[in-house]
């Protein structure tokens, strides 16, 4: 066994132990399991919210984009800052409503606001359709990291099965508490690892940041700026806006909001999180450093650039530590996804079709769904080919379709009817599917438009269809009024 494999196995055991220990001292009813009994302070909520930015996507994809695409990667650094500045005002509103009515899921929020269980079911379906591919993405990343770091000794398949089994065990036992505890370990490791290699590699290979960027620019002219067509400034701005819009609509982060003890937690986090996400900068540095050190990774292989340059530069020990940190970037978001998906299906689908179900049964159903969801995701990870890529592309656009519904219900009463919101969401989702399946872009839809329009993110088209249908139905239906809690 190489040191790398030893470290990975060690951290793996530590994660499961931490995840299980998180339960201690808490009776696990649904409210504890799903939203931590609404007792998390600034640090735990901070860790859950930071979870969105440090997934395997940022770890492998952030360096991969910097390596393969250059400046367009910078968008990853932008949408968080914008979403956090909004979160200062948005999250306390959501939290207050959820707190007063003891909500446990995002679908609950919409169902209660619009007084429509049907809307709850629609949101639940959208959520799960977006969450499962997101989990698959994390599992894929986990497989790649473990097999690379172990030098192929552990195959991707074995890693994916082992990772999912670990997830199921501690998620069923500890719920979102397990996510919070393990994310503490994750953030410490990522912080140490990413800053260390993000400082060391550019210094070691190029003598400094400026020298590194100059070498990259000389070898690949234009890599450090946005091109004038394709991933142009128009693409960049529209993609950042669209991604920031969808940021808090991911069901696991929306429910993460409910875990907070009080609303001041969000205000403090809105101050700290923008600064904190600058760690992504170091991930970019690693990707740029890899451009000239381990050249030749094409297409999807660009995502391996971080692991390859580390392998090329350090011994097995370092590779093991980085691999272990990478595993955590898959497990923590994975655990939040499982808790959320289980809760949504139990609370917003099962409870609706079985109105007599007690809280105890719903809690049991939520936890029983975890192994099933994990199994489905593993099978999709191992078997899903092209369909999977398409589903992944759709995930973010799926949750973004909930944006109009959210904005229109932030006041005391929703401004439009549940029917109009449902119609808008369904129309929006169908448009997302259509656009993704046909690989449409604004350029293919409007071939005669100016280049700037052509480069806009096509996700806005679905959001536009959603808004138009919503308005049309809203004009002929009446909004519900929410009774005081």
């Amino acid at each position, binding site marked *: 066994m190489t040191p790398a494999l030893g470290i990975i196995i060690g951290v793996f055991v530590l994660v499961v132990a931490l995840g299980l220990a998180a339960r201690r001292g808490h009776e696990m009813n649904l409210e504890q399991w799903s939203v931590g009994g609404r007792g998390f302070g600034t640090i735990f909520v901070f860790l859950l919210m930071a979870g969105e930015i440090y997934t395997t996507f940022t770890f492998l994809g952030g360096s991969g984009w910097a390596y393969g695409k250059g400046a367009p990667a910078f968008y990853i650094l932008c949408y968080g800052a914008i979403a956090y*500045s909004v979160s200062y005002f948005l999250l306390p509103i959501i939290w207050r409503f959820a707190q007063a009515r003891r909500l446990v899921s995002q679908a609950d929020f919409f169902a209660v606001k619009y007084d429509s269980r049907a809307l709850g079911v629609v949101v639940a379906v959208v959520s799960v359709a977006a969450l499962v591919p997101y989990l698959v993405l994390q599992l894929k990343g986990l497989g790649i990291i473990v097999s690379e770091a172990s030098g192929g000794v552990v195959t991707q398949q074995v890693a994916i099965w082992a990772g999912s089994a670990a997830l199921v065990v501690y998620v069923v036992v500890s719920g979102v508490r397990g996510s919070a505890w393990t994310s503490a370990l994750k953030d410490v490791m990522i912080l140490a690892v990413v800053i260390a290699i993000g400082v060391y590699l550019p210094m070691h290979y190029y003598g400094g*940041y400026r020298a590194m960027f100059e070498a990259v620019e000389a070898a690949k002219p234009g890599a450090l700026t946005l091109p004038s067509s394709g991933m142009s400034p128009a693409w960049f*701005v529209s993609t*950042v806006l669209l991604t920031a819009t969808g940021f808090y609509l991911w069901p696991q982060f929306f429910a993460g909001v409910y875990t907070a003890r009080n609303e001041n937690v969000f*205000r403090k986090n809105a101050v700290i999180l*923008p600064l904190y996400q600058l760690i992504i*900068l170091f991930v970019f540095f690693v990707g740029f450093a890899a451009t000239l050190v381990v050249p030749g990774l094409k297409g999807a292989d660009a995502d391996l650039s971080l692991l390859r340059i580390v392998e090329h530069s350090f011994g097995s020990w370092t590779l093991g530590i980085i691999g272990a940190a990478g595993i955590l970037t898959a497990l923590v978001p994975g655990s939040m996804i499982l808790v959320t998906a289980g809760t949504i299906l139990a609370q917003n689908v099962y409870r609706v079709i079985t109105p007599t179900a007690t809280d105890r049964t719903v809690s049991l159903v939520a936890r029983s769904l975890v192994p099933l969801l994990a199994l489905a995701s593993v099978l999709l990870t191992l078997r899903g080919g092209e369909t999977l890529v398409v589903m992944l592309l759709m995930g973010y656009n799926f949750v973004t379709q909930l944006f109009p519904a959210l904005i229109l219900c932030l006041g005391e009463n929703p401004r439009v009817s549940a029917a109009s919101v449902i119609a808008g969401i369904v129309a929006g989702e169908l448009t997302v599917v259509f656009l993704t399946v046909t690989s449409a872009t604004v350029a293919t839809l409007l071939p005669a438009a100016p280049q700037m329009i052509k480069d806009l993110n096509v996700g806005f088209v679905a959001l536009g269809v959603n808004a138009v249908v919503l308005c049309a139905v809203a004009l002929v239906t009446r909004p519900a009024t929410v009774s005081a809690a």
Partner: protein
Amino acid sequence: MRRYRWLAVLPTLGLLGGIPFANRVQPYIAGLPFLLAWIVGWVVATSIIMGLIYRLDKRNDAAAEVAVSPVDHPIP
């Protein structure tokens, strides 16, 4: 009246509004090409701006608590 809260739109306007003009390599700032430096600068500014709003809100909350019940902060 908490007009200072409008400061929160600055990150979005500054960061994104400046992208077409900041899309260049030169001059390097602190070793970073200009576009990246622009973005990093705005991300840091976001934290500073939100920190400022937080402090002003705290001060106003303290002042309001004397008059109104502390649980009932008005949101503009």
